[in-house]
């Protein structure tokens, strides 16, 4: 236990347990399967928000095209499931049985070559992570080696999202077009649409999210995490301390892409389809607000932020659909202007000191460990304080 705590940081550890209790115990017990499935869907967005914490919050790289990676992961999974749903028996009425229905409508008479490997589940699992990661790698190498950053990078990723959407919609014979890949039913014969399956998928999803949270926490806690923070403030200094800044940016961007892609794959499994509407600009920017609301420097905040915004969206749009965009807009502006550190910032500023005071009464102070450095700031709050100070 202590090893885990040391691995990701002590404070983070207790907070993670709270989140685990919430996601793995409280919500499944208190929600019916319909609502729980919704939560599961939202949690898939949390993967993207988590990726954004890494690359935007820590790396300072704002990508407005994270939906592309979410979508790529989702499409990889959807291709596998669609192939399974398109067995020759199921598609006997088609002019070419055994290929997905939309291909048949588009006069394809054979499965395109890049669909072939998706018959294999093992390949699919690798593809879910590697395809988006490699795509991210190509973008990142081209951009970061040339030191494109900030607003330029944001705009270019936005253009990439636009290109991707047009391509997917335009190549409907290969991608299912604007409708996406729909009507996915089974995974190795296991019906993913039943309530039981939804429970299982929810847990798989939640556990994968925790796995990603651990990876993220490990990265942040490592020297690489501190380098990212350092880079955001003083890129030149890092460079002249002998680090290849672009390599670090490429790494964190690819990691963020891979994490987003896992979310996309889980989305496909839980919702049962994938469509280009998740690849575009609008969903990509919406996911940025999940992250911003939770706190761009807090990996757990990303999860809470995602859940909160989506909960608000669902309940708001049920009662006052017209007001939803006003609320969403106000949220964007409010968070950015008043709480640049989001919920996590508020929590750390107001709640945590109070909680600490409470807990100090029954906790003996722990002895300082290695040298002077144990006071190293909890990496999730410290970097921002100077930022705050600057703008106060």
């Amino acid at each position, binding site marked *: 236990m202590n090893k885990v705590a040391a691995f990701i940081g002590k404070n983070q550890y207790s907070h993670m347990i709270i989140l685990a209790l919430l996601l793995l115990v409280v919500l499944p017990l208190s929600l019916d399967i319909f609502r729980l499935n919704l939560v599961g869907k939202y949690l898939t967005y949390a993967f993207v928000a988590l990726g954004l914490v890494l690359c935007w919050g820590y790396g300072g790289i704002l990508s407005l095209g994270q939906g592309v990676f979410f979508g790529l992961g989702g499409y990889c999974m959807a291709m596998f499931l669609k192939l399974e749903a398109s067995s020759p028996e199921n598609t006997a009425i088609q002019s070419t049985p055994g290929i997905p229905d939309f291909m048949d409508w588009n006069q394809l008479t054979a499965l395109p070559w890049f669909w072939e490997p998706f018959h294999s589940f093992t390949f699919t699992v690798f593809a879910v992570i590697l395809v988006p990661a490699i795509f991210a790698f190509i973008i990142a190498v081209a951009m970061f080696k040339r030191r494109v950053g900030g607003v330029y990078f944001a705009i270019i990723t936005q253009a990439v999202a636009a290109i991707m959407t047009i391509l997917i919609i335009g190549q409907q014979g290969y991608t299912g077009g604007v409708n996406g890949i729909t009507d996915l039913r089974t995974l190795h014969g296991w019906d993913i649409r039943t309530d039981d399956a939804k429970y299982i998928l929810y847990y798989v999803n939640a556990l994968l999210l925790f796995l990603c949270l651990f990876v993220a926490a490990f*990265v942040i806690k*490592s*020297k*690489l995490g*501190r*380098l990212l*923070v*350092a880079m955001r*403030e*003083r890129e*030149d*200094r*890092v*460079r*002249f*301390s*002998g*680090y*290849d*800044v672009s*390599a*670090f940016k490429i*790494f964190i961007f690819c990691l963020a892409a891979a994490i987003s892609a896992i979310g996309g794959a889980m989305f496909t499994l839980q919702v049962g389809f994938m469509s280009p509407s998740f690849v575009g600009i609008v969903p990509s920017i919406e996911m940025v607000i999940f992250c911003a609301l939770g706190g761009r420097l807090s990996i757990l905040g990303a999860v809470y932020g995602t859940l909160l915004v989506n909960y608000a969206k669902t309940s708001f749009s049920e009662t006052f659909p017209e007001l939803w965009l006003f609320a969403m807009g106000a949220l964007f502006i409010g968070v950015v202007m008043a709480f640049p550190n989001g919920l996590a910032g508020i929590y750390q500023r107001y709640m945590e000191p109070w909680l600490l005071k409470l807990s100090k009464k029954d906790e003996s102070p722990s002895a300082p460990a*290695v*040298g*002077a*450095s144990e*006071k*190293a*700031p909890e990496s999730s709050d*410290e*970097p921002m*304080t*100077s930022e705050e100070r600057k703008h106060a």
Partner: protein
Amino acid sequence: MLESTKSIPAKDFVLSVEGLTVSFDGFKAVNDLSLYVEEQEIRVIIGPNGAGKTTVLDLICGRTKATEGSIKFKGKELTKLNEHQIVHAGVGRKFQNPSIYEDLTVFENLELSYPRGRNVWGALFFRRDAEVVAKVEEIADMIFLGDKLDMSADLLSHGQKQWLEIGMLLIQDPELLMLDEPVAGMSVSERKQTAELLQRITKDRSVLVIEHDMQFVADIADRVTVLHQGKVLSEGSMDRVQSDPKVIEVYLGH
């Protein structure tokens, strides 16, 4: 490249800059400049504003790419390398304004500069062991910050920040140290300490310094190079340079 024919073979010098030129939209900030630095030498570059002093350092450390000319460091051509590769080759650079990580503590500032785990995977699995701690503490003592390791770097005084940045370079043990106005904004006592510091750390390396403070220059310099409009105006010992009529004209002309 007339210069190179009469120049001495590069390997005798730690740093030999030859025929260096850079132009920004036609304006030649550095124009056909040649410069040689010996081992364990403290070389100070002076010159009026806009003479191209900082640009020369930028060129050497790879921050700006040269239009023409060569920069050889221990026989290795630097103009083709990236910044971090130049650092790995053994060149350290301090900026004009203290450039430290203000969000981190003094300890972490030094630790991040410790030359281990410099690639992605190395950084990911870097562990803070006794060796690192010992080295950090040693350097911290050297730069007069031994008792401030826990302090957040933005709470340091301006002079202390300058020292910290020098310390961040020292921990990498570079063979050539380049300092851009290291005593700017320092109090008199801090200046003195800095001069001592420089004397001490040059035992094992060469140092290239840009400085305006003539007293300080006189204190530390082995040799002085005067730049004017991107060219070397005069070079030699402090006394010689100070009595050079060309230098006097440029300085008084201002």
